[in-house]
């Protein structure tokens, strides 16, 4: 650093002025560059306008009305007793709207949608760059980033990590409860109070069992990879008296025994063989955990079915047709020619995530009736009750259970064992919120109720709506959101209520639906029907909930009516 500036020396700005003045470019070229640059800038929004108008749609970029404070917000700021809080609330809403607007424009862009597969070919296909959430391994294997991060990251029970995570979160996201042990002990105590045994079953991620498919330095690996805190986690679980079925050594052994992979190459999840080994190990642990009374054999049969598909990680890369599909044999479980069904009177309840849903939930593309619940049921020789939901294994199924209990439906009645299956990556990144399981009273819904088979068309205002993930940012191609509707007006019938909680598709086949773009305050038209009609198909789909603890409204299923 020099502290003297000779008077004759030019300042940086004077040098810059002189430098810019000395630019050498011909007038024709300068004009050509200007015109070309402006054409690129302006051409894209004009094209979007044209493309949307051609199909009779209003382009997303005109949806700017929500980006300013509403009259009601201004009135609240001026008249309320706490104008600062009202200002913060309005500001927070506008920030959410800005983010949604920006995402919406990009997601709505035909140019972007056309470019993604084109650009993914050189970046992901040829240069193996992957994307934000999926990494390429060897021989066409694809890995989910969060699985890798869990193994390479710091110990999830490291006090510094726990403290950092507890302070994390984001502009619109609450910080998580980071300690999985707290949540497990909390659940264990609540279940023990009702005489129910908890069995925890963490499923290792693909790189734990097949690390050599990501890095050749693991060709001679002798044991599954684990996060540095995993050993301590197992020890402390056992010290707390919680039964744990550690599936990592089971799957490692199975892989060596079979001499072939127990995970899918293009998917985050295990293969049918891996699942079978997991189901048998969990069944053995359940038998150890509780002396279950004998039940008559179910008479179930195995039906092998060949399924060919590109896995979730492959689809995340959006390489469209450039990832080779895999074929697996799914062992579907049937009873007298009918697919296996979960039984709410069973004494074993499985809470599971996508590792339980795969081969069971048709929407995942890997067949039906051959998932973890089905295979566990077969291994135990007894019916099994299942509450499954893709993603967020750290809390999603406990929340489902808590919601049912809060509505007065005792899903835990008659249960002896609860198996809680989740992906081990959740230990590092999940929200292990403490959820109280309190049996509420059966109360009539305070909102709109529809009987089975009843269909109505309504117009309503969105009071709140949960956020939809950006397509490609989650390892699932379908997603549901929940919304609270107010000021319902029946289009063709008289309504019993004026408010409703609805569940809607926000993403199908990695593309946003109209509901993903809905905003608070927007007036929308929908077809409504009872959620119970579709619960069996939709309960397992990952969703973002309203999480406001309001169970007074029974949910309905909604199909938006697109109005242009």
């Amino acid at each position: 650093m020099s502290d003297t500036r000779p008077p004759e020396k030019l300042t940086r700005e004077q040098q810059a002025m002189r430098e810019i003045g000395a630019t050498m470019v011909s007038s024709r070229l300068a004009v050509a560059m200007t015109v070309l640059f402006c054409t690129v800038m302006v051409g894209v929004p004009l094209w979007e306008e044209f493309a949307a108008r051609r199909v009779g749609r209003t382009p997303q970029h005109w949806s700017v009305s929500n980006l300013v404070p509403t009259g009601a917000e201004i009135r609240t700021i001026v008249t309320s007793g706490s104008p600062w809080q009202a200002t913060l609330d309005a500001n927070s809403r506008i920030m959410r709207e800005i983010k949604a607007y920006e995402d919406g424009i990009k997601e709505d862009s035909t140019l972007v949608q056309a470019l993604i597969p084109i650009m993914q070919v050189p970046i992901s296909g040829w240069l193996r760059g992957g994307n934000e959430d999926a990494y390429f391994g060897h021989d066409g294997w694809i890995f989910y980033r969060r699985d890798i991060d869990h193994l390479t990251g710091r110990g999830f029970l490291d006090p510094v990590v726990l403290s950092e995570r507890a302070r994390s979160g984001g502009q619109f996201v609450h910080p998580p409860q980071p300690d999985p042990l707290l949540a497990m002990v909390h659940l264990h105590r609540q279940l023990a109070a009702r005489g129910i045994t908890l069995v925890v079953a963490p499923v290792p991620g693909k790189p734990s069992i097949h690390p050599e498919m990501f890095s050749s330095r693991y060709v001679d690996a002798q044991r599954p990879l684990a996060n540095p805190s995993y050993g301590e986690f197992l020890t402390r679980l056992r010290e707390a008296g919680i039964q744990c079925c550690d599936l990592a050594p089971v799957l490692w052994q199975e892989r060596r025994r079979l001499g072939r992979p127990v995970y899918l190459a293009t998917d985050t999840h295990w293969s049918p063989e891996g699942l079978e080994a997991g189901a048998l190990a969990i069944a053995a642990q359940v038998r150890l955990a509780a002396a279950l009374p004998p039940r008559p054999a179910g008479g179930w049969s195995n039906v092998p079915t060949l399924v060919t598909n590109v896995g979730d990680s492959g689809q995340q890369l959006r390489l469209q047709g450039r990832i080779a599909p895999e074929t697996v044999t799914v062992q579907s479980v049937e009873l007298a020619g009918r697919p296996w069904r979960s039984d709410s009177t069973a004494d074993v309840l499985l809470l599971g995530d996508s590792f339980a849903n795969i081969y069971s939930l048709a929407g995942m593309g890997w067949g039906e009736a051959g998932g973890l619940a089905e295979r566990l049921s077969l291994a135990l020789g007894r019916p099994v009750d299942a509450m499954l939901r893709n993603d967020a294994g750290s809390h999603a199924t406990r929340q489902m259970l808590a919601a049912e209990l809060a509505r007065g439906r005792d899903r835990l009645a008659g249960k002896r064992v609860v198996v809680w299956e989740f992906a081990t990556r959740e230990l590092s990144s999940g929200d292990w919120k403490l959820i109280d399981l309190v049996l509420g009273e059966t109360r009539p819904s305070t909102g709109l109720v529809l009987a089975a088979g009843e269909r109505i068309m309504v117009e309503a205002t969105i009071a709140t709506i949960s956020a939809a993930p950006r397509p490609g940012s989650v390892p699932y191609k379908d997603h549901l959101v929940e919304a609270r509707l107010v000021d319902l007006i029946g289009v063709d019938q008289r309504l019993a209520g004026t408010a409703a909680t609805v569940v809607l598709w926000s993403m199908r086949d990695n593309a946003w639906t109209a509901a993903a773009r809905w905003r608070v305050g927007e007036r929308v038209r929908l077809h409504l029907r009872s959620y119970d009609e579709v619960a069996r198909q939709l309960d397992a789909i990952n969703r973002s909930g309203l999480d406001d603890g309001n169970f007074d409204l029974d949910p309905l299923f909604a199909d938006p009516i697109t109005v242009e």
Partner: protein
Amino acid sequence: MVFSSHIFFFYFLPLSLLAYYLLPRSGKHILLTFVSYLFYGWANPLFVVLMLVSSLIDYIAGLAQTGQFNRAAWSKPVPLLPPVNASRRPARRWYNWLLIPYVVAWLRCETPGRTRQQKLALLTSLASNLALLGFFKYFNFGIDSWNAIITSAGWDAARWDTLLRITLPLGISFYTFQSMSYAIDVYRGEARAIRHLGDFLCYVAMFPQLVAGPIVRFQDIADQFATHRTTPATFARGVAFFSLGLGKKILLANPCGKVADTMFDAGSVGFVDAWQGVVAYAFQIYFDFSAYSDMAIGLGLMMGWVFAKNFDSPYTSKSITEFWRRWHLSLSTWLRDNLYIPLGGNKLGESRTYINLALVMLLGGMWHGASWNFIIWGAIHGGWLGIERALGKDSFYAKLPAFLRVLITFVIVCFAWVFFRARDLTSSLAYCQSMIGLGPQQDGMDLMTGLATQPYFLISMAIAAVVIWACPQTWDFTRRIGWGKALWIFLILLLSLAVMETQAFNPFIYFIF
């Protein structure tokens, strides 16, 4: 809003340029102010109020210093205050080493050509800007540090476990420094105060350099309010700057950043991976930050404004002293003019020079953020500046072959970057251990190799190295543009836009400073 985003390039920029060119000069400044506030408020509308308040304080401070609150004064041009040549320093008493007594003593001591009111106006500007910066930047750090000390002393009852976490307003370090520089320049008689509020707000908020610089001193841009103009040549050069900047960000900084993130977020890394990670970070931060500066300069040129060079091929430096003549020039110049020289520079003896150097670098580190890591980063640089000064031109270090000196400088810079990038002090030290082969071992550490050795990342890093050490920097490359170069520039622009569209949100590193 981020330059490398769909909304900026395809909507904000064309609409802003269109409106800008449709308006006369006086309208242009108002429009530029309006779109700059929109640009800033896009991240958080409430932060706009903060910037406005900060700007108004400095605007008033400028008027107060030049006596503009008198109606009669408005009939004459704003005077340029005489230069402050000789300023008596406060008496050398022990309590004058404390901030408040020093400030009081400074206010009371006589400064030829400056009244107490003028000093008070300057002080108000400095105090308000530094208070803003201090509160938003150091509140969380202060609470965390206090709690850490209290916990380690076993006085848990004195912990302050507040739920309040302050969100750092984007670019606050940049615009407060820029805003302060106005009051300082007016006080020193290096620039005239500005009467037109719109012009002043425009100077502080100008969107091309608002969020991540370059920090523009008022005296350097004041004349451009009357003289700025665009020609096809400057617009074309602006296009070139912007396109190359976008390419540096999207095609080089982002892939290097992915490698760096993987290594730095890991629990432990091996020797080779650690070096790959830190070199990737060195590349990332250079391409990310210099890309922003290039785009800012390019956008400025498209609207007729000229901003000075902010980077001058820093990794070709043969010493840390030279590095600081090439890295983040607007900040190092600001610190030199407003801190190092007022502290006495090298005029007060050898030992005082070292103290001044160390102090400036420590404060430079703290400017970046509230963490011990930034302070250590500043200390490493300050320490090396001192060592190089002590060794002088005759040292063995200065006599090494040029490429070895470049290599040694780069290695020192890389070690310092570890503290800049790692999440805390413990992680920094663990990472440095890995860089000398003594890092802790972890099951999954070799998984990182699987990612870092993918062709996409290796090729990106190789190209980055070639651009750093073998290609001309943007100012030189764009000085003479022919059809061939123009074709390259547009290919880079189109490729960058195409890759940008496939990526998620990719903010600039310096947004958080």
